[in-house]
């Protein structure tokens, strides 16, 4: 198909580089430099989608980020699908595959359109709140249909093959927007020696200068842009970012920029390249030079394809060499839009009329139109549009001076394109992101940035000053101001000259009247994407939705993917008029990030897949991998869970590991336990304050178990701390609690007790820790050390320095299994060496590696708790039956002491940790099962506590469990019942949690 709307020359496209692309299954051709939108318009494609609610045909209305209709599905393969791409922002590339996102069976022949036509009358705003209620059970059926009709594009169903990237940036001046204002600001700041970042969402810098015929410094605007850009690029302190949308402006001058790296090349990034890069910018000063969006007017049937925003028409002509029609009617409230008619005329196509809503338009642009023989119809408006799939004509009528009423009968004009301009809306979005409220400016007829606490400057059209001359001078001023605030000298920069065309006053008009009242007139669209009409807004106001936020929420205005860039001000104006108040009284419009939507992938960067969260490994991890370990996630650590042999089930492996440990010797990699080196003359005193038990008299060479509590008395961590020297301790914490405990110690030291002389240093990663446990553990250790490790010289809860397998070690005789155990600590660089030596020598004892699960079983046989499994932040030591670990007589009121004595904490019927023996020894209670005393009680059944730990004990040949039972410590031998999900009720007897070796003889050998 030929590009029937393409001009023979002009524009910034490269006619020597034709590109083939697909839209809705058909092939088309465009040129390098096109957007998907400009290429579609060049090919005369009118309908690019169907509207959300009424399924009306829609065409392209704008040329940039504000486009509400041209929302496309992109992607040649399943994995590279991207939903909801704005055609006006997607650069064309060869092989691009696109499709419209709504319309069934297709956008040209849409059956839902019929539904829209027939049912549309019954679908005012909020109609779904008023219906679909009966019968109650039917809502979810209605909902399925509603959901199916909504939703624009679709998610890919395969995984994204591309990678994304993030970069942290810092600068003195962040310039947002590289139009004339932004370029001047960046130029001044850069010449003044500041570190500058300048970003623009378009593929080329220049902003408005790229789509107009204006000159700067006597040369074409684009030539001036090129020279400034070149200077900026050459400056090593300037980061120049085209194709980069500043999409969020956050606290303390933090901004996010989404840089499209390869999205203009293909739908999959070329090999090795990233698809998009996210810049996280911290700027000392920010210059917002974000320009303005032209505001369309609201009139009847203003959504028929062929109705466009005036400036967009100029952009297509001047930038892309595309005239999107043959016969134009321009409706305007201001002089500026006359450019569009001139551009259209100069491109050799017919301007039927300029319909100016003002009584007496005058000035050079008006003269220029008349000189070309263009009819100017003053004091008039396009009150209706004819055509269904494309504009075929318009109705023009006179309107009253205030624009509120039609004052003549309508006259029909033939046209295939209607361009409208209601003035400009400054792009205040980023300023709003920071919590700053925009303020209404009557002379600008728009909202401009309001008071801010950020280090923020603004320049150009964002301030409501729309001419190029204003942009250049305000940009220069902003650049110089930034330098001054940074304490830098003013830069040598001359203000470029630009031809200032004088414009007469614009008319503040938003909603074009119709001969019928709004509620009866054909639909007048305010927000295209959500099918919000002027009548809808008036209805919302009538129903009592008087706050602008209510209006927006009730009608869904501004909730589309364009976030109301075109429609919000018009909607507010219509609401203001309905409520008979001013626009500023009606409220402001608050935009939130993102400025334009950003793919999740880009925000995620490389924090996904295997890099989503660190996997922490011990020094012996490689060995575990090589020996078939199954791993358990504990915090960020990968810990061996169990070591199955070929063909073994998990339970079989656990049985084997448990028996081997109790009968011979097993080994556990315990390196992940938190370890803190504590030194200072007040170390003991400090320990006494943060642990519930006493530390004053622990001799050098001894170890002690301690419980750590929060101020409320509840247990939050536990571990063994050893006295290495009179003023030197090594504290161990749970694996998951390591970082939290260190912070806890520092918190109390730094804020409460700075007078205590004590220092803490984490040595978790420094020591590799391996525990050999079982009756043969001593024999094994003896083979690898010269030290005397006999019972007599190395008793339970002692530690000793010695050499193990040639490596200096600290060995601790502590036990979490209840067996004779040695915990060997060596510098982690030698961990694997010692581990392997233990296996060399341990083979004859069938040294068995075991993981966390066997550790859990073995400790449960002994009734030892695991903080985090048998505790949940709501139990104190007495609840755990661990009053022995509390020393109430310490002189200092240790952390948790007072909390434990609160009224509710001393109740006799608190849930207490006990052992549980199922009456049927073969039943292993599920961990988490809830106990009751009366299993016949009706629902809701009074629960008395849950099972925290439960295992099959191969050593005991039966199941064992621990759990909480209300008042359980006083109920030994009584029964508790566990009604399970599968309907079974398991009966268990309350017992001591120590199932094996209650006297502790095995560990004391």
């Amino acid at each position, binding site marked *: 198909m030929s590009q029937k709307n393409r001009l023979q020359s002009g524009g910034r496209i490269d006619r020597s580089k034709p590109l083939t692309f697909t839209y809705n299954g058909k092939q088309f051709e465009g040129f390098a430099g096109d957007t998907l939108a400009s290429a579609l318009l060049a090919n005369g494609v009118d309908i690019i989608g169907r509207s959300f609610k009424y399924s009306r045909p829609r065409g392209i209305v704008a040329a940039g980020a504000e486009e509400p209709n041209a929302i496309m599905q992109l992607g040649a393969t399943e994995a590279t699908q991207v939903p909801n791409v704005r055609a006006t922002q997607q650069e064309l590339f060869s092989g691009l595959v696109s499709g419209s996102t709504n319309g069934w069976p297709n956008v040209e022949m849409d059956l839902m359109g019929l539904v829209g036509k027939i049912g549309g009358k019954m679908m005012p705003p909020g109609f779904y709140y008023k219906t679909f209620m009966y019968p109650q059970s039917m809502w979810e059926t209605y909902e399925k249909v509603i959901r199916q009709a909504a939703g624009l594009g679709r998610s890919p169903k395969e995984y994204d093959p591309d990678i994304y*990237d993030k970069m942290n940036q810092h600068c003195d001046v962040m310039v947002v927007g590289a139009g004339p204002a932004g370029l001047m600001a960046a130029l001044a700041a850069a010449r003044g020696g500041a570190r500058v970042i300048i970003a623009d969402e378009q593929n080329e810098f220049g902003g408005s200068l790229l789509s107009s015929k204006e000159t700067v410094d006597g040369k074409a605007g684009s030539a001036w842009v090129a020279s400034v850009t070149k200077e900026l690029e050459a400056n090593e302190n300037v980061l120049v970012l085209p194709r980069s949308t500043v999409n969020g402006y956050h606290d303390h001058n933090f901004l996010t920029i989404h840089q499209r790296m390869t999205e203009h090349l293909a739908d999959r990034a070329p090999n090795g390249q990233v698809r998009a890069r996210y810049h996280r910018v911290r700027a000392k000063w920010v210059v917002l030079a974000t320009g303005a969006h032209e505001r369309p007017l609201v009139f009847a049937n203003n959504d028929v394809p062929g109705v466009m925003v005036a400036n967009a028409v100029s952009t297509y002509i001047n930038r892309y060499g595309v005239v999107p029609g043959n016969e134009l009617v321009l409706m305007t409230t201001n002089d500026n839009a006359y450019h569009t008619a001139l551009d259209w005329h100069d491109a050799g196509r017919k301007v039927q009329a300029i319909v100016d809503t003002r009584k007496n338009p005058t000035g050079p642009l008006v003269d220029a139109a008349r000189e070309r023989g263009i009819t100017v119809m003053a004091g008039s408006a396009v009150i209706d549009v004819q055509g269904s799939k494309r504009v075929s004509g318009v109705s023009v009528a006179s309107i009253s001076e205030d624009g509120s009423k039609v004052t003549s009968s309508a006259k029909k004009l033939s046209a295939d394109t209607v361009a409208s301009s209601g003035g400009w809306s400054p792009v205040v979005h980023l300023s709003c992101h920071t919590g700053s409220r925009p303020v209404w400016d009557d002379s600008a007829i728009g909202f401009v940035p309001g008071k801010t606490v950020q280090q923020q400057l603004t320049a150009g059209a964002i301030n409501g000053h729309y001419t190029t001359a204003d942009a250049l001078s305000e940009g220069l001023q902003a650049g110089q101001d930034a330098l001054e605030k940074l304490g830098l000298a003013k830069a040598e920069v001359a203000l470029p000259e630009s031809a200032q065309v004088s414009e007469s006053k614009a008319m503040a008009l938003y909603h074009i009247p119709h001969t019928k009242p709004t509620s009866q007139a054909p639909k007048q669209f305010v927000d295209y994407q959500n099918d919000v009409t002027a009548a809808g807004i008036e209805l919302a106001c009538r129903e009592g939705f008087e706050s602008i936020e209510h209006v927006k929420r009730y009608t869904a205005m501004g909730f589309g993917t364009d976030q109301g860039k075109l429609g919000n001000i018009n909607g507010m104006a219509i609401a203001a008029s309905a409520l008979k108040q001013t626009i500023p009284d009606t409220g402001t419009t608050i935009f939130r990030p993102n400025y334009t939507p950003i793919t999740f992938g880009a925000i995620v960067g490389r924090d996904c897949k295997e890099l989503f969260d660190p996997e922490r490994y011990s020094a012996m991890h490689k060995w575990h991998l090589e020996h078939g370990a199954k791993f358990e996630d504990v915090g960020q650590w990968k810990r061996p869970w169990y070591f199955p042999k070929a063909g073994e089930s998990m339970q079989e492996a656990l049985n084997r590991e448990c028996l081997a440990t109790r009968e011979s010797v097993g080994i556990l990699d315990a390196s992940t336990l938190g370890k803190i080196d504590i*030194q200072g003359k007040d170390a003991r005193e400090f320990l006494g304050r943060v642990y519930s038990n006493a530390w004053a008299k622990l001799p050098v060479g001894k170890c002690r178990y301690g419980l750590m509590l929060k101020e409320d008395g509840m247990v939050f961590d536990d571990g063994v701390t050893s006295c290495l020297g009179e003023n030197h301790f090594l504290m161990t914490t749970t694996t998951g609690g390591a970082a939290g405990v260190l912070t806890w110690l520092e918190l109390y030291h730094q804020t409460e007790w700075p007078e205590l002389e004590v220092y803490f240093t984490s040595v978790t990663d420094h020591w590799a820790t391996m525990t050999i446990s079982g009756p043969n553990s001593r024999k094994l250790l003896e083979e690898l050390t010269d030290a005397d490790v006999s019972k007599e010289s190395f008793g339970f809860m002692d530690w000793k320095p010695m050499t193990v397998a040639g490596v200096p070690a600290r060995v601790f005789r502590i036990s979490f299994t209840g067996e004779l155990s040695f915990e060997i600590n060596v510098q982690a660089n030698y961990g694997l060496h010692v581990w392997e030596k233990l296996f060399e020598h341990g083979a004859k004892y069938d040294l068995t590696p075991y993981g966390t699960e066997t550790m859990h079983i073995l400790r449960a046989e002994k009734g030892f708790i695991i903080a985090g499994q048998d505790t949940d932040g709501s139990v104190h030591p007495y609840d755990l039956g661990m009053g022995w670990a509390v020393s109430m007589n310490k002189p200092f009121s240790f952390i948790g002491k007072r909390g434990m004595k609160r009224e509710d904490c001393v109740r006799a019927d608190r849930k207490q940790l006990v052992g549980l023996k199922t009456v049927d020894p073969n039943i292993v209670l599920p961990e988490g099962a809830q106990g009751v005393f009366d299993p016949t009680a009706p629902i809701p059944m009074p629960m008395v506590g849950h099972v925290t730990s439960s295992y099959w004990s191969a050593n005991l040949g039966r199941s064992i469990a621990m759990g909480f039972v209300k008042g359980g410590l006083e109920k030994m031998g009584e029964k508790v019942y566990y009604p399970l999900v599968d309907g079974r009720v398991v009966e268990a007897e309350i017992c001591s949690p120590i199932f094996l070796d209650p006297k502790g003889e095995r560990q004391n050998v």
Partner: protein
Amino acid sequence: MSDVKNETATVSVMNQLPDASIVGQSPLFHADLATVAKKGPNTGGVSFKEEALLGHITLRMNADNAEQMSVVEKVLGVALPTQPLTSVSQGDVVVRWISPDEWLITVPGLQAFDIETAFQQNMSGHYQVVNVSGGQTLVTLSGKHAKDVIKKSSPIDLHPSEFPVGKVVTSVFAKSSAVIRRSGEETFELVIRRSFSDYLWLWIQDASREYGLVVEA
């Protein structure tokens, strides 16, 4: 054999190194960087090298204590940097400011115990010296794009005006942390924790891909 302080010692210090016949395994040993280096490439925008098995010592003390400060200078041969975020170096010894009362000292691996011992023998009062050599490793990133890899990983400002040679910061690095020191215009040293080192190695490879990563052994 390791040795322990006498009975009256208030802290326990031991030589943690075996004799030279036993080779230590640095946190990145499993990555087999020597083989990776041999396979190339030899040119690229970023070079990576692990300075394996250095001695790493944490020193905590009060910088206002002049007597202790002079002991430090005697032991290390260089005065402790008291300006925040600075480092000093003397031969193989580098001392990094970590916090107002904390420094990280790196020395050749075999010297750690001597330095620990020297501190214990010469310094009095309240301080802490901890050998942390097994818990961390030092890697260098160098080359034209070294700073870009760090910019992808850490929120620190690396512009020479903000981050001159010799500056040291402890900061977020990917989802872990690192002590970052600029040791040359285009060279950065990262001290990273052992348990995170495999993750960070994967991260650095991924973040360097577009520049070309050269592994040095």
